[in-house]
């Protein structure tokens, strides 16, 4: 069996804010679902954008059905931690006292990395269910809409930081399990989303290096989003340039729009080329739809691109 993205258990969709991570997460879920997978989409930040792409107000802390075989949930690290305390503190009264003490509030908010590990452990918990044949609902694939780049990196880097801080106890053990999951390229991979522009490409290249060197994680592909499609072939480009040069006065708006298209496409291509030559991962392109607000049909179209392209990369 080929080792494609679709064969992983957990896909982290990471990248800078504004690059389209959330849309791509939703589209990838649709694409995987069309392959018959049961997909769990996970939101890791307070932002209801993902839910609205499926026509829902927002996700809850328990998986809810979004489509025939797509479920969505939001992970609240505080709730996960509370469940932890309840599980490991066997005296209910003491557990109650902890959960209602100010110190718990502080530790939950301020212990570095605790929040992140709680998010990841919840993902891990669902991932582990893929092993067993229990009757509880099983997911074949978990797709995580990670926080924006810097934060996305800290989400994934945290397990190693926290393991060194908390050397003992159930959370430390849990953290090691999470770390194993992240580093296991047969189970987990990361898909990076970038825009074909200077700074985003620089950041994507830097992120790629960090993920592989510091985190030992598998980067399956870099998605370049919002790429202007190639409308004119090279002969047509020269024809348009000739026309634009000959009509100096009273420029035709239609030619002006064509000129824009050609110039932008060329500029983007230079950044995409940089990503291809300097980066070490397959680069996968998604088209720009000439709008600020994608409609449902366009998202379905992205899903189709992902299904026939990204999911074929091995």
């Amino acid at each position: 069996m080929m080792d494609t993205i679709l064969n992983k258990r957990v896909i982290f969709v990471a990248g800078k804010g504004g690059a389209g991570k959330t849309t791509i997460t939703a589209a990838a879920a649709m694409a995987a679902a069309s392959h018959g997978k049961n997909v769990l989409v996970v939101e890791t930040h307070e932002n209801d954008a993902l839910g609205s792409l499926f026509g829902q107000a927002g996700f809850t802390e328990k998986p809810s059905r979004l489509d025939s075989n797509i479920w969505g949930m939001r992970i609240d690290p505080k709730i996960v931690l509370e469940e932890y305390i309840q599980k490991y503190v066997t005296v209910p009264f003491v557990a109650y006292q902890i959960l209602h003490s100010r110190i718990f509030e502080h530790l939950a908010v301020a212990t570095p990395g605790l929040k992140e590990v709680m998010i990841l452990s919840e993902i891990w918990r669902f991932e582990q269910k893929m092993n067993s044949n229990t009757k509880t609902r099983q997911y074949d694939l978990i797709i995580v809409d990670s926080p924006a780049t810097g934060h996305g990196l800290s989400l994934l880097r945290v397990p190693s930081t926290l393991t060194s801080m908390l050397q003992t106890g159930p959370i430390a053990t849990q953290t090691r399990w999470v770390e194993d999951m992240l580093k296991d390229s047969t189970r987990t991979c990361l898909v990076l989303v970038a825009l074909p522009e200077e700074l985003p490409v620089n950041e994507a290249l830097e992120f790629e290096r960090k993920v592989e060197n510091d985190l030992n994680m598998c980067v399956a592909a870099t998605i370049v989003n919002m790429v202007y499609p190639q409308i004119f072939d090279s002969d047509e480009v020269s024809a348009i340039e000739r026309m634009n040069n000959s009509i100096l006065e009273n420029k035709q708006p239609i030619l002006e729009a064509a000129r824009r298209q050609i110039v932008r496409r060329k500029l983007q291509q230079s950044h995409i080329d940089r990503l291809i030559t300097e980066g070490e991962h397959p680069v996968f392109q998604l088209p720009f739809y000439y709008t600020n607000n994608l409609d449902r049909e366009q998202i379905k179209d992205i899903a189709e691109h992902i299904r026939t392209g990204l999911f074929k990369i091995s």
Partner: protein
Amino acid sequence: MLKAIFENNGPCIIACCGSGGVGKTTIAATLGIMGALNGRKTLVLTIDPAKRLADSLGIDSFKHEIHRVPREKFLQNGIEPSGELFAMMLDTKRTFDKLISRYASGTSQKKIFGNRYYQNLSSTLAGSEEYMAMEKLYEIYHEGDYDLIVLDTPPTRRALDFLDTPQRLMDLLGHKYFWKFFRPYLYAGRFGFRLFTLLTSPVLKSMSQVMGTHGLEDVAEFFNLWDDVLFDGFRKRAGEVQKLLSSSESLFFAVTSPMARPLKEAVYLYEKLAEHHIAFGGFIINRVNPGYAKNDSDNSAFLNSPGIDKSLAEKLRINFQKYKDLGGSDASAIEEIKNKTGANILIRQIPLFDCDIYDIRGLLKIREHLLSNF
């Protein structure tokens, strides 16, 4: 209207807020040049400038220090500012450290810096990056070396988190119950926090079973180091920073693109600023696609002219429609902002250029659009 803010009686602080990827740094750099052109000694405090932009301003190593943009760089581009332009990159951890060393005594300072909990605090406490940007701003403002400071704020989902950060920090560090809870254990012995005293409290004992004792020790040691002097110093400082930001010395701009999410963020910013009584300069909408006139009937005459291949004509028509839609989509997004915020709010549109903006020449193009009226 926009020109007036650079006059001598204008604000001393201009902050650019907004989501990531909308071109905040570029706008901040442009406002910096405008300050210098108006004769003011200007400093741009930035987060992470593109290397090409830094290079073109003649700034090679950007870390921690203030750099002056060489005069030749301006002369090469045909401008002769009567003021000067400086740039500096923000460093959250360093600023936090400096704040600690301002208020903590020598020995506790050392211990705080060595504490693992503290080492991670500046990167985990939500909003601390934003807050430290404001802290740095306050520090530079008080040193009084510059007529104008332009701040390029960190990109956050909730761009104004920093306004709540001091309070959160205070809550975290200073809550009375927290102290009551911890103190007996902290003062139990000469070595401060000891395991066996910790474990006499059932709650702490159970927590340490879950969290591991190491984690708790670090946290306890850290809080033990926060004495009243440090705490009061921190609180007072936070109050002063807030006061400066809401004074007439400061003016905030929302930088955005016409994309739905950054725009939403910008409107949120506008509302939040009003709530905190902070002066709002206006919306700077970057990367706007040009609109095309509704009437495109003259196209058909052109497309039917004998020199144009039929299939090319069809492609040209399709392409034109896409660009018309795109321009229309941007225009209606901006119209919506106007409806939401009222007619008195300044809105400046910067077009999406056909090339990357990475040098003074490019920044001057943005300046033209900032100064012109739409």
